[in-house]
């Protein structure tokens, strides 16, 4: 069985995987990082979004082997245990941007990428358009949009931990 090595949330990891193992399976099953979720089988729902070398990607559509040598950040990597939450995480809580929580890790990781590409001053239209790859069934998106706008602004205020290195 092939071996793959990568850095996940700042830690070097190695694992034996079948060639067809998806990145999301490697994260969840080999590394026991179950914060990244699987919600579909056609790459629509976005529950699996992580950052690969600083860029948002759907981990259900990447093979683990494709990530040899890459730097991966998952939802678990945004805030260290016992430390304050990332401003985007805090914004989701403050604005009730989640209900069942299942799409939430993917939403937050996607939101950080929106900030990376579109900046900290996001209008409603931009956020809604940019969330095309993330489906939520619970919230109707209203509060997710509010949360992302607020989180983006809070990140600009400094002291923000960057999700991507």
């Amino acid at each position, binding site marked *: 069985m092939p071996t793959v090595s990568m850095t996940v949330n700042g830690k070097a990891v190695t694992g034996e995987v079948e060639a067809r193992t998806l990145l999301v399976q490697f994260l969840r099953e080999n590394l026991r990082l179950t914060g990244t979720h699987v919600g579909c089988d056609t790459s629509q729902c976005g529950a699996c979004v992580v950052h690969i070398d600083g860029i948002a990607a759907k981990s259900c559509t990447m093979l683990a082997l494709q990530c040899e040598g890459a730097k991966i950040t998952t939802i678990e990597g945004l805030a260290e245990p016992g430390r304050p939450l990332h401003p985007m995480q805090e914004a989701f809580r403050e604005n009730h941007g989640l209900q*069942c929580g299942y799409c939430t890790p993917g939403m937050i990781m996607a939101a950080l990428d929106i900030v990376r590409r579109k900046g900290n001053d996001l209008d409603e239209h931009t956020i809604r358009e940019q969330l095309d790859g993330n489906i939520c069934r619970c919230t109707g998106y209203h509060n997710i949009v509010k949360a992302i706008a607020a989180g983006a602004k809070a990140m600009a205020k400094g002291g923000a931990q960057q999700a991507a290195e």
Partner: protein
Amino acid sequence: MSATGIGAAVRRKEDFRFVTGTGQYTGDVVRPGETRAVFVRSPHARAKIKSIDASAARQMPGVLAVLTGADLANDKIGNLICGWMIHSKDGSPMKMAPHPALAANTVNHVGDAVAVVIAETLLQARDAAEKVKVDYEVLPAVSDPAKARSGPQIHDVAPNNVIYEWALGDAKATDAAFASAKHVTRLDIVNNRLVPNAIEPRAALAEYDAGTDQLTLWNTTQNPHVSRLVIAAFVGMAPEHKLRVIAPDVGGGFGSKIFIYPEEVVCLWAARKLRWPVKWVAERTESFLTDAHGRDHVTHAELALDEHGKILALRAKTIANLGAYMSTFSSSIPTYLYATLMSGQYDIPHIYCEVDAVYTNTVPVDAYRGAGRPEATFVVERLVEVAARQLGLEPAEIRKRNFIKTFPHQTPVIMAYDAGDYHASLKKAMELADVKGFGKRKREAARHGKLRGLGFSTYIEACGIAPSQAVGSLGAGVGLWESAEVRVNPTGSVEVLTGCHAHGQGHETTFAQLVAERLGIPFENVSVVHGDTDKVQFGMGTYGSRSGAVGMSAIVKALDKVEAKAKKVAAFMMEAAEGDIEFKDGQFTVAGTDKSVGWGDVALNAYIAHKFTGAQLEPGLKETSFYDPTNFTFPAGCHICEVEVDADTGKTEIVNWTAVDDFGTVINPMIVEGQVHGGIAQGVGQALLEGVVYDKDGQLITGSLMDYTMPRAHDLPSFHVGMTETKSPSNPLGIKGCGEAGAIAAPAAVINAITDAIGTENLAMPATANAVWKALQSAQPRQAA
């Protein structure tokens, strides 16, 4: 109102784990020695199983077993059931066909499971499942409910595929009212079939402890105790006290995770056979083929009015597609959760509603957010809107002329509405939506080639399911009360054990708000325990917008008992008479004095028990209540949808959404608004985007998220949500419930708005750009006022 009490927009306790990815959903649970299950499913809508050859599969690496329907029957595992008896008009009982967890003789829908492969890893199980050879004799199938009666007979027990022919109301009086009516509005309506698609797929993990003969099931369920009861007593898997069901974090339900499905039954059975934990997680396409679908009604509806637009009568005939088997609550959705809401917010003297439920070779249909009430609201609100246009009345005006104004109000369809003020929500919604300015906006839009339309939906629903005797008399096999246990710890913190189970509704926060305020203790000192049949006594679960009205009422009753006992303890502590003790803001005071003790002291003393003898008072401070509501609750409101249709493309943009709902007492307005948002989104999805398509051979064409259009953020606007409040008199807190309202109100508002914009009388859902464009080609768009 305190910062964390009733009515406060307290931020949720649940959120920390969800935003950090440390929630624990069923698929995240890992048990030592865990094996993986993959089901072999029929690719045919209807077929005889001639043989199953698993010899090749069994040889493959990692495979521990391949089990079939024959094996299940040999082990005497019982069938799944529908727990609500419905009788036809002729008195005969509904025709419930056998539903084994693995088909042994015939398969009846694409996706019907015939075998299960258990292997050490998921990939090994998948590989082996592909090698299971099933020899099918394909049979003709029927997928269209309107054609079910003349299609091939699916089940021996149901000639013409008819499950029941049911009716409610007074046919003679209704027909007489129609015969003498000055005006009759007629509509043919299809309530399109939907797939719930909670983002977390269903999953089950079963484990057997041979030493204690104990089964444990982790399951994505909205009601662990009900699942346990059905699996134990009806499926006969194990005695009830030997089965533990745990619902950990559940990622959305919307009704689809109420029912007891084949997969958890098979996992339990396999785990006990193999002596290894067995885990199954649905793939999304599998969800499309196995999660109970929603809606799927074909209706002819008529409204009789006098010349002033006063409604005289309503009648409807519905064919309800229940799919290939009767799911757990399926029979009740198009009957007692549908026809009983046909009065809407209106004073309608005569109503008659007939419902024929049929089998087809499609996925079973059962409750999905709103469960019968969106179907009813769509019928009523479309009839009223079309009648208004036909009579030249404004939508608000026809409603005002027909609103119920005095309460309680007995409808002709069982429901007795207890309290409401429909005019107040209409008025507030019209203000918030700036209906006055609509004409100007419409003319402005027309200058840019856009057609603006306005659609009203004044809905009512029956929630807070439900008074047990009432539903029992209507055929329910269980009572629909709720339980709560309030456990005070010696250090004064409190655990609330509830039979409800949140899958997004925030009970860990809202229930804590209630308890913290009542006992005068910090919000942080209250935890809510739910979802484990080993920890929580029997409860009925969360659905039907019941956790506030019924679940919280049970907590209130338990809190009453806690307060009463705590006062006794305080009386002993202060050497006063029990009747002289007052409790307020966490302090127990002897009336008329300044002698008082705090909550913390009283809690500790209850357990240390030095101030009283066992004969005087039992130590401890823990009370239980089972609360049976006295009535349904009746949330109601007015939603106004403003759309802009592009005349060239048929694309609809929702430019404004206003919702004014009356939910009675609101515990946490932030959470309640979130429920409204989510419900509206699902209703808009039904109206504009979603719809299951089967071909005539029963193949599911919309079998994945690539073909079935889920609403995304750019399909929806931000919502304007307001509330009015008339408390429900049917429970101690006055709560009506809010979880389903948006899904109930929205579809009618959208279709009313688009038909207003393009000038057609009717329009099928989903009103995709293509459908609207086609309708526009033969329509006369209405001119701006």
